C-alpha cells in the first residue's frame, strides 16, 4: 500500500522522496528471532514532514535505521524494500550507499555527544561532510560551514568552529550535528529523538530551528519521538507505531483531535497538559506494557491492552489499515474504529480535589549550599587564589504544608536535586535551616539521624534502573526496609507486609521472588515507591520519578503517587522539569533557576499570569500534545549559564526576553508579593506591570496569537 502524503488531494501528486514498501525487519538474538518492524508502508513527498511516535520497543528506531540501510548485523529485512527517489536501497553498492547517506539523507541521533568526533574540531568535521558529499573545495566548504552554523542559530560562529565538541553544551552540540547533517544538502533528514536529552527551553529552540530549516531548505523530515507534543509542533503528518506496526497514520490535526485507534487515544490520555490539572482531567494510563513477542499473534497487536477488544473480531487474521477519512488520508488499523467513534471519551471521572490543610510541616529558611570547586592548576597547589564555589542553592526559603504536594521546577543544573540531597542528609547545607518537626535538618547528616526521622522522610529516585540493588530479590529489598524501620519483625508478618505494599503499588505478589533485571522500568519504579512508603513516611521526596519512563507507564506511576498520597496522607515533594506533570500533581510550585527561587505560589497562581519571565518562557517551551491549543511562543536565546560563573544581578538576565536594562545585570531583583495571595515573583519588573501580562495559553481552538 503506498500513500502519498499530501494535504490537498487536488494538487498533482509528486513522486515520493522516500517510499517504504511493506517492510519487515527481525532481530535474531539469544532468545530467538524477534520481529521489530512488521509490514510497514510509508511514503514521504519532498519537503513533507512525518512524525513517528510510539512507546520504546515499538520499532521506531529500527524503522529509521532500515530507511538508512544501516541496520545492525543481527537484523534482517524479511520482506519489502525501501526506495529512495525510486531506487531500491537494498540493491545499492556500498559506494552508492555512502553517497546517499549524508548526501541524499542525513540522520541526527539522540546523543549529540556521541555523534561528534571528540578529537576533531567542529570546523574539520563540518568541512569533511560538505567536501565529501558535494565535491566542493575546502575554502567554500569552510565558508558554508560558517554560514550553516549561523543558520542553526549558534552565536560566535568563529569560536565554535575552532572548538572541540566537549567545549560545547548539549544544545550547541545538537545544533552542530544538525548543521553537519544539512551541509550535505540532504533531501531527507531523519531525526531520532533529537532533543530527548536536552532541557525544555533548549529543546524548544532546537525544535523551532528544525521547523525553520525545513521551510527554508525544503528538506523532507522524518521525526521520531515518544513526545507527542513535539510531533504536534513539527510535523504535517504522524504515524503511530505499536509493536512494529503502524496502527494509525494521518494529518496531525485530525489524529490528535479525533484519534481513530485506541492506542493513539491512550497515548494522548496519558499526558498531563500544562493547562489542566488533576481535578479537571484525570490521567488514564494504558494497561500493561509493550510485549516483546517472538511470534506474532493473529489480529490486533494492541488487543491485550485495549479496552475495546472484542474476542472473535480483534484477534482474528491480519487487520488492514483502513482509510477513515478518504479526503485527508487518515488511516487506522482498528477494526472497530467506526463503533468506537471518538476514541477519546470525555473524562467522566473527576478526581476529588485534595483538601488543603494549613499545618506547616517543613520550613526552609535562607538555605545555601555551596560546593567548593577543585582547582587543578599549579596556583591552587600553593593556595594563592581564594577557592571558588558553585552556588547550587542560594537563599532558598519556602514552606511545605502537611498533606500537600509541593513541586520544585527548573531545568537541569538549577539545584533542585541538590536541595533534595540536603533535605535527605546526603549533603550538608552551607547556611540556613530546614525545620521538620522541631529539628533542623540542614546540617544533620543522614548517619546522625535517628530512625524515627529516617522513617518519616523517604525518597523515590529518578532512575528506576539504579534504584534497586540488582543482586537481591524484590521481596528481600522491601523486607529489609520493613525490618529496618521496625514495622514488622517475625517472618510471617514481614511477608504479609511485603504483600500489602506490593498490592498498594498494584504489583502482583509473585514479584517478590523476582530480581530487578526481570522487571520493566515502570515495575521497578513501583517497587521503589513501595519501598519509600514501607516505613509509612510523613514526607516523601520524588526526584523526577517518571522522567525516564515511557509515556503510558508515566501516567500509571503518576496516578499511583497521587492515590498513595491521598490515601496515606503523605506530604509529597516533587522535583521535576515537566511543567505538565507539575500542573497536574502539585498544590504549590517553586520555580528555580541557577540555584535561586524565581517564583513561588499555588499551582493556579504560578500557571496563570502574572508570570515571572522565566516561568513564562518555560510554559511556552513545554511541548503540548494538542495542535489546536494556541499559545504565545517565547524562544529563549542561548544556553543556561554555568553555575560556576552565574551572571551577576538577576541570574536570568542573560536570556530574559523582558530584560529592563542595566539594573537587571547589576542588582539582585527584589522578591515581590503579588496581589493574588501567596504568590511571589523575584523580578525587577514592577508588580503592577507583571500583572498586565496575558495568559500564555489561548483557549483550545481559539485564535492564534503567535508572536
Amino acid at each position: 500500500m503506498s500513500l502519498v502524503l499530501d494535504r490537498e488531494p487536488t494538487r498533482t501528486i509528486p513522486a515520493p522522496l522516500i517510499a517504504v514498501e511493506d517492510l519487515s525487519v527481525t532481530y535474531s538474538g539469544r532468545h530467538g528471532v524477534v520481529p521489530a518492524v512488521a509490514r510497514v508502508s510509508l511514503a514521504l513527498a519532498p519537503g513533507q514532514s512525518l512524525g513517528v511516535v510510539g512507546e520504546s520497543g515499538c520499532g521506531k528506531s529500527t524503522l529509521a535505521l532500515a530507511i538508512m540501510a544501516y541496520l545492525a548485523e543481527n537484523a534482517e529485512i524479511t520482506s519489502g524494500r525501501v526506495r529512495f527517489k525510486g531506487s531500491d536501497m537494498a540493491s545499492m553498492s556500498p559506494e552508492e550507499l555512502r553517497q546517499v547517506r549524508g548526501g541524499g539523507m542525513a540522520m541526527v541521533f539522540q546523543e549529540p555527544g556521541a555523534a561528534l568526533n571528540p578529537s576533531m574540531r567542529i570546523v574539520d568535521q563540518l568541512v569533511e561532510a560538505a567536501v565529501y558529499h558535494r565535491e566542493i573545495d575546502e575554502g567554500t566548504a569552510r565558508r558554508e560551514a560558517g554560514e550553516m552554523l549561523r543558520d542553526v542559530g549558534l552565536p560566535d560562529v568563529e569560536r565554535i568552529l575552532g572548538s572541540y565538541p566537549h567545549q560545547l553544551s548539549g544544545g550547541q552540540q545538537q545544533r552542530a550535528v544538525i548543521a553537519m547533517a544539512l551541509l550535505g544538502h540532504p533531501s531527507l533528514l531523519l531525526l531520532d529523538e533529537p532533543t530527548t536529552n536536552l532541557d525544555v527551553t533548549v529543546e524548544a529552540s532546537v525544535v523551532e530551528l528544525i521547523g525553520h530549516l525545513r521551510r527554508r531548505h525544503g528538506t523532507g523530515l522524518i521525526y521520531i519521538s515518544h513526545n507527542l507534543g513535539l510531533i504536534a509542533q513539527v510535523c504535517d503528518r504522524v504515524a503511530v507505531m505499536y509493536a512494529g506496526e503502524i496502527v494509525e497514520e494521518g494529518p496531525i490535526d485530525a489524529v490528535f483531535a479525533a484519534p481513530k485507534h485506541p492506542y493513539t487515544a491512550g497515548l494522548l490520555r496519558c499526558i498531563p497538559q500544562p493547562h489542566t490539572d488533576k481535578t479537571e482531567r484525570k490521567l488514564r494510563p494504558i494497561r500493561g506494557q509493550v510485549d516483546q513477542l517472538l511470534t506474532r499473534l493473529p489480529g490486533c497487536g494492541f488487543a491485550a491492552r485495549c479496552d475495546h477488544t472484542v474476542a472473535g473480531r480483534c484477534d482474528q487474521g491480519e487487520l488492514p489499515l483502513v482509510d477513515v477519512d478518504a479526503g485527508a488520508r487518515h488511516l487506522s488499523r482498528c477494526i472497530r474504529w467506526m463503533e468506537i467513534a471518538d476514541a477519546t471519551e470525555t473524562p467522566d471521572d473527576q478526581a476529588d480535589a485534595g483538601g488543603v490543610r494549613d499545618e506547616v510541616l517543613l520550613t526552609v529558611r535562607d538555605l545555601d549550599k555551596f560546593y567548593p570547586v577543585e582547582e587543578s592548576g599549579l596556583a591552587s597547589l600553593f593556595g594563592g587564589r581564594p577557592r571558588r564555589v558553585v552556588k547550587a542553592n542560594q537563599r532558598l526559603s519556602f514552606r511545605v504544608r502537611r498533606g500537600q504536594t509541593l513541586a520544585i521546577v527548573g531545568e537541569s543544573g538549577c539545584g533542585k536535586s541538590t536541595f533534595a540531597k540536603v533535605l535527605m542528609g546526603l549533603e550538608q547545607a552551607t547556611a540556613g535551616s530546614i525545620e521538620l518537626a522541631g529539628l533542623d535538618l540542614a546540617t544533620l547528616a543522614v548517619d546522625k539521624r535517628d530512625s524515627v526521622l529516617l522513617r518519616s522522610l523517604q525518597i523515590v529516585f529518578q532512575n528506576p534502573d539504579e534504584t534497586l540493588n540488582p543482586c537481591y530479590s524484590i521481596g528481600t529489598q522491601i523486607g529489609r526496609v520493613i525490618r529496618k524501620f521496625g514495622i514488622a519483625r517475625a517472618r510471617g508478618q514481614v511477608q504479609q507486609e511485603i504483600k500489602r505494599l506490593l498490592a498498594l503499588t498494584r504489583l502482583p505478589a509473585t514479584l517478590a521472588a523476582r530480581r530487578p533485571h526481570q522487571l520493566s522500568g515502570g515495575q521497578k519504579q513501583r517497587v521503589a515507591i513501595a519501598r519509600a512508603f514501607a516505613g509509612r513516611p510523613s514526607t516523601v521526596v520524588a526526584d523526577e520519578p517518571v522522567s525516564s519512563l515511557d509515556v503510558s507507564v508515566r501516567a500509571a506511576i503518576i496516578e499511583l503517587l497521587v492515590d498513595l498520597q491521598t490515601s496515606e496522607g503523605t506530604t509529597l515533594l516533587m522535583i521535576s522539569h515537566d511543567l505538565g506533570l507539575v500542573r497536574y500533581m502539585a498544590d504549590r510550585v517553586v520555580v528555580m533557576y541557577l540555584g535561586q527561587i524565581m517564583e513561588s505560589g499555588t499551582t493556579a497562581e504560578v500557571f496563570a499570569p502574572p508570570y515571572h519571565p522565566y516561568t513564562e518562557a518555560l510554559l511556552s517551551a513545554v511541548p503540548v500534545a494538542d495542535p489546536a491549543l494556541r499559545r504565545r511562543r517565547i524562544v529563549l536565546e542561548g544556553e543556561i549559564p554555568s553555575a560556576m560563573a552565574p551572571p551577576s544581578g538577576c541570574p536570568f538576565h542573560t536570556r530574559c526576553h523582558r530584560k529592563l536594562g542595566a539594573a537587571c545585570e547589576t542588582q539582585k531583583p527584589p522578591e515581590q508579593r503579588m496581589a493574588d495571595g501567596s504568590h511571589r515573583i523575584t523580578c525587577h519588573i514592577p508588580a503592577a506591570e507583571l500583572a498586565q501580562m496575558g495568559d500564555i495559553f489561548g483557549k483550545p481552538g481559539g485564535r492564534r496569537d503567535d508572536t
Partner: protein
Amino acid sequence: MTTGIDAPERSALGGEESRVAGFISGVGRLRESPIAMIGLAIVLFWVLVAIFAPLLAPMSPTATIRPMALPGTRGPGGQLFLLGADHLGRDVLSRIIYGARTVLIYAPIATACAYVVGVVAGLLAGYRQGWVDDLLARIGDLILAFPALVLYIVIIAKFGSSGLNIILAVTLASGPGVMRIVRGMVLDIRNRAFVAAAQVRGESAWHIMFAEILPNATGPLIVDACLRLGYVTIAIGTLGFLGLGLPPPNPDWGGMISETRQFAMIFPHMVVFPCLAVSSLVLGLNFLADGLTDIVKRA
C-alpha cells in the same frame, strides 16, 4: 539494635541464595563460550591431577633411580620413565604430578589472601574517600613502586623460604592491585541510587559496603581473580626458579626448571616438561578469564 543484628544475617542469607543461583546460571552460560570451556578443561585437568597425585604418579617424586634417563627409557627395576628422569634420577612425570599440588595449594590460597586484603582496603578507600582513601592509596602506590620480584626476594630472603612466607609475599605484592580495581568499581557503584536509598534508611557503612556494593562488583572481580591466579602461578614458579620456593626436595615446577637448567642443552626433557606444565595451567586460567569476561559483559 536488635534489628541491626538480626536483619543483616537474613538479608545476607537472601543474598547468598540468589548468588548461588546466579553462580549456577553463570556456569551454565560458560558453555556458550568455547574458549572458557577449553580453559576450564585445562584447569580441571590439573586440579584432578593434584587431587589424585598418589594414584597417578608411577613413582615417588623424591626417589632417585636412574639419573639422566631419557623419555621412554626404563630404569633398573623396569620402571618406565615416560618423561625421563632428572639429574638426580627422579622421575620427571611424578615430580610434575606432585608439583601440581604445590602450585594448586599455594596459588589459590595466596590469591584469596590478596583478595581479602585488597577488597577490604578497596571498599574502605572507595566508600569512605577522604583521608582513608589517600592513606590506603599511598600505601598501595608504595608497594607497587617496587618491582614485584624485588619484593618477593626481600621478603623471602628476610623471613626464610616457607609456604607461609610465599603466601605473605604474594599477598603483599597483589593486594594493592586488587584494591585499585575494587576502589574503582566502588566509586562507580556508590553513586547509584540504591546506595543512597540504603543511606537514607539508616544502614551502617559496613552493611552498605559489603551487602549493597560488593555483590555488584563480583563479575569483574571473578575475571580478575582468574587472571591473577595465573600471575600468582607464574610468581610461585619464579620463586621456585630463584631458589626461594619450597625447600628441596619438595617437587616444585619452578624449582625443577631451576635445578636442571644447566643440562637443558643436552637433556631438554628435564626443563621442557615442567615449563609446559606451568604454561598450560596459566594458559588455561587466561582462557577461562577471557571467556568469563564475555559472559560478565553480556550479563
